[in-house]
């Protein structure tokens, strides 16, 4: 039986390649139109990851780079949610990877020269596999805003970079998570590469008091949606999509 194809990507929902206010995109955006490709196994399949690939502590940024008995400085948060597809079905056992600056907006990267200091107990990356219900969570500190050389006084909103695989290479996605209520979101040229305010809204994690651990850690909720799979009357599996 032919595997079902993924729904076409809505290229008016995603940011266009060229968004002049985000200056780096000017010379890094293709000028020719992409060639549309109906899917074969090359697009429908993708890498499979298992628990042998990662360690249990990898999703805990409060611990995965801290000295024994110490922890990073900053607002302790849980980021959690589900990875779903466009049919609202969970995407189980898929790899979610994140990276971020520390509480002061400084990245642990040899190319970052921002004067805010490195936190000796904070690496800034994590990874996990979704469970059978598509659920994932990380513990970390809330990242700080960060200046960047775009316009003279541009500051990135607090954000966490998120990378997700899904089950096929065509679902591969990298995005950024923002935090509810941050006034920098509306000013950011990278956020504004996304034309539709509803699409931007999907990137804003919501404060989640019900998942907050009293006297310990604040929680934010962030669901991720990957491309769904089509089924036709003739290709349909009996159990549905």
């Amino acid at each position: 039986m032919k595997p079902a194809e993924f729904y076409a990507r809505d290229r008016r929902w995603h940011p266009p390649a060229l968004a002049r206010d985000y200056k780096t995109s000017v010379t890094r955006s293709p000028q020719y139109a992409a060639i549309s490709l109906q899917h074969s196994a090359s697009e429908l399949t993708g890498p499979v990851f298992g628990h042998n690939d990662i360690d249990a502590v990898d999703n805990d940024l409060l611990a995965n780079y801290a000295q024994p008995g110490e922890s990073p400085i900053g607002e302790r948060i849980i980021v959690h949610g589900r990875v779903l597809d466009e049919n609202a079905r969970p995407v189980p056992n898929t790899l979610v990877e994140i990276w971020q600056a520390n509480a002061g907006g400084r990245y642990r990267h040899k190319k970052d020269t921002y004067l805010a200091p490195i936190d000796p107990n904070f690496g800034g990356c994590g990874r996990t596999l979704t469970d059978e219900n598509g659920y994932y969570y990380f513990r970390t500190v809330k990242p700080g805003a960060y200046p960047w050389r775009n316009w003279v006084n541009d500051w990135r909103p607090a954000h966490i970079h998120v990378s997700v695989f899904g089950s096929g290479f065509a679902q591969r996605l990298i995005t950024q998570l923002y935090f509810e209520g941050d006034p920098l979101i509306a000013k950011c040229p990278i956020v504004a590469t996304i034309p539709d305010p509803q699409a931007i809204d999907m990137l804003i994690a919501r404060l989640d008091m019900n998942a907050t651990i009293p006297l310990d850690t604040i929680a934010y909720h962030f669901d991720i949606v990957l491309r769904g799979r089509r089924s036709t009357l003739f290709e349909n599996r009996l159990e549905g999509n």
Partner: protein
Amino acid sequence: MKYLKETPSQTAGPYVHIGLAPGAAGFDIYREELGHDIAGPNPKGERIRVEGLVIDGTGSPIKDVLLEAWQANADGHYAHPEGGGEVEEGFRGWGRVITDFETGEWGFDTVKPGRVMGRNGRLMAPHINLWIVARGINLGLNTRMYFADEDAANAEDPVINLIEWERRRATLIARREDRDGLPLYRFDIKVQGQDETVFFDI
């Protein structure tokens, strides 16, 4: 039917290495970084090396790119439940590489993939699927690398033949060279401008 919308993409940014290749960012954190070993310890087929640059619209190499490769094994099977058949132990078919910060050169060691069945029963020529993210790239770019020494298969490849502009097809063909007896394929990717690489909306 109520559908959800896909989460919109954002650029991977200049510090993508922190999350996806932390050793290159300058620190060790994971027991094992993912994506270093594409073909595993005992792959079938011909061992090859692939190298190239990613070049921007000014002709300059992009030095903060991350590429991911996805390929079949020498039998034309992907390491996936719907991949067409079994693959050898340790063959993942997926790799992740970054550019050298000074030169922009990237490269990986793998094996030459076999032909994979495409749509409507038409075999595709051997190819490696590539996904490219970087600062300034808002949505990952998909392309394919084909092999210059597969002329006959390339000529009947259903995807190459989708490209109406015949001169653009050459942008997907990696040049074969020899380095100390090991086959080396050179594949430069031009993101914009003269001889712009073909990218796919997959």
